[in-house]
């Protein structure tokens, strides 16, 4: 306690359930009566959220969503009314009187069947709506991605490099790399033409110091432009830098000096 209130340290431990049971009981008791400490606790809990948010995301196990949807479609809120566990009395009347009730039993069974089918239809309809929304979302995302790719790779796209006035255009390139997906888009401008038996080759220089990884061969068009789009690369390799070398037509296993274009990747 500090000045009749719970210390920030103890509130933090309480929010993390890290106090002993006795200490925790004392804190709970005080919180019931003290609005100021409750406000402080909310602030501390907000800070703890940040710790939780530092966790690296892990993809859900396969089928997790389907299992969840099954649960909510089968949850009590959606389930048809049950008998509430009421006991069913056994009819001891003569067989003849039961025969009278057979048509009614059949009608009741049909009603139950109809209700059951209606519930099934509603579930399928809900599932269909979810899938339709997901499909629409994916379609929009794909269309946008395709549009970006089309612009980046269109042979007739105008590629303009802005430099200080009166500066002769020099070879330059840009690499966009997403290590987590092993995805790379590379565009170069103002490249010098190369002989028939030569080719440019792009390299990814891994951050862990391992050997450069070949990331595609390319030759410039008449205007000196070239691009490499989504070459085959291993996933999860953090890049320290990218480089371009001149190699024999079939490409090289290791970069041949000199490195004609190079760029360091910004640190994480």
């Amino acid at each position: 306690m500090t000045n009749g209130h719970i210390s920030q340290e103890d509130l933090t431990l309480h929010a993390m359930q890290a106090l002993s049971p006795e200490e925790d009981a004392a804190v709970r008791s005080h919180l019931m009566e003290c609005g100021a400490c409750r406000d402080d606790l909310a602030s501390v809990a907000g800070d703890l959220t940040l710790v939780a948010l530092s966790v690296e995301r892990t993809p859900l196990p396969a089928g997790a969503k389907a299992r969840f949807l099954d649960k909510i479609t089968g949850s009590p809120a959606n389930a048809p009314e049950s008998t509430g566990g009421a006991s069913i009395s056994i009819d001891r009347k003569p067989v003849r009187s039961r025969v009278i009730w057979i048509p009614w039993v059949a009608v009741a069974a049909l009603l139950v069947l109809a209700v059951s089918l209606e519930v099934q239809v509603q579930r399928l309809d809900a599932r269909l709506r979810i899938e339709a929304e997901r499909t629409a979302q994916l379609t929009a995302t794909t269309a946008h991605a395709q549009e970006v790719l089309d612009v980046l790779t269109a042979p007739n796209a105008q590629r303009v490099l802005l430099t200080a006035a009166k500066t002769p255009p020099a070879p330059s390139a840009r690499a966009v790399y997403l290590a987590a997906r092993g995805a790379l888009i590379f565009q170069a401008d103002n490249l010098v033409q190369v002989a028939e038996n030569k080719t440019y080759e792009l390299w990814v220089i891994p951050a862990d110091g391992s050997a450069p990884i070949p990331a595609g061969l390319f030759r410039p068009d008449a205007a000196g432009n070239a691009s490499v789009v989504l070459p085959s690369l291993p996933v999860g390799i953090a890049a320290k830098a990218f480089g371009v070398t001149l190699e024999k037509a079939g490409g090289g296993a290791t970069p041949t000096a000199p490195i004609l274009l190079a760029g360091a990747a910004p640190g994480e």
Partner: protein
Amino acid sequence: MTGAAAASDEVLIDRVRAKDEPAMGAIFDRYATMVYSVALRVLKEPGQAEDVMQEILLQVWNMPDRFVRGRGSLGAWLAVVARNRAIDVLRQRRPTESCDEVVLASATNLASEFEQRAMMEKVRGVMKKLPEEQQRSVELAFFEGLSHSEIAARTGDPLGTVKTRIRAALISLRKGIEA
């Protein structure tokens, strides 16, 4: 984006109250990975982590009023509830607190994967800069569910030092994020 996928958390919760399954599906898409990841970080066992995730999201479906507006963002609330429930599972005990008790002052918007990832990167960056002993103390308390006396016993540090370190780490974290 369409319908539920583009709606705000508040709108989705309202629709969940009316038992709108696509709205609950959108909340699942938005937060299930985060909730699962937090639980997995604590439990280190995918099956148990999925059980925790399913249980928490099922509570949102069955009792959406447990999340009360003004108590912070839905994403932040789910992250804390996931951690607390996972610690309960780790300690093999019944839930020590009801979700109703989790009140937090956090307006952090986590409705999109981009916002979640951006916040994760920012927090990780700030945490890396904390003194190693502060990082370790927070790690032991938050993710391993150790009490302050257990941490003191494990690290050999005085009890008061452990408390101060954890508090100092959270203050630095908040300042680092607000900077």
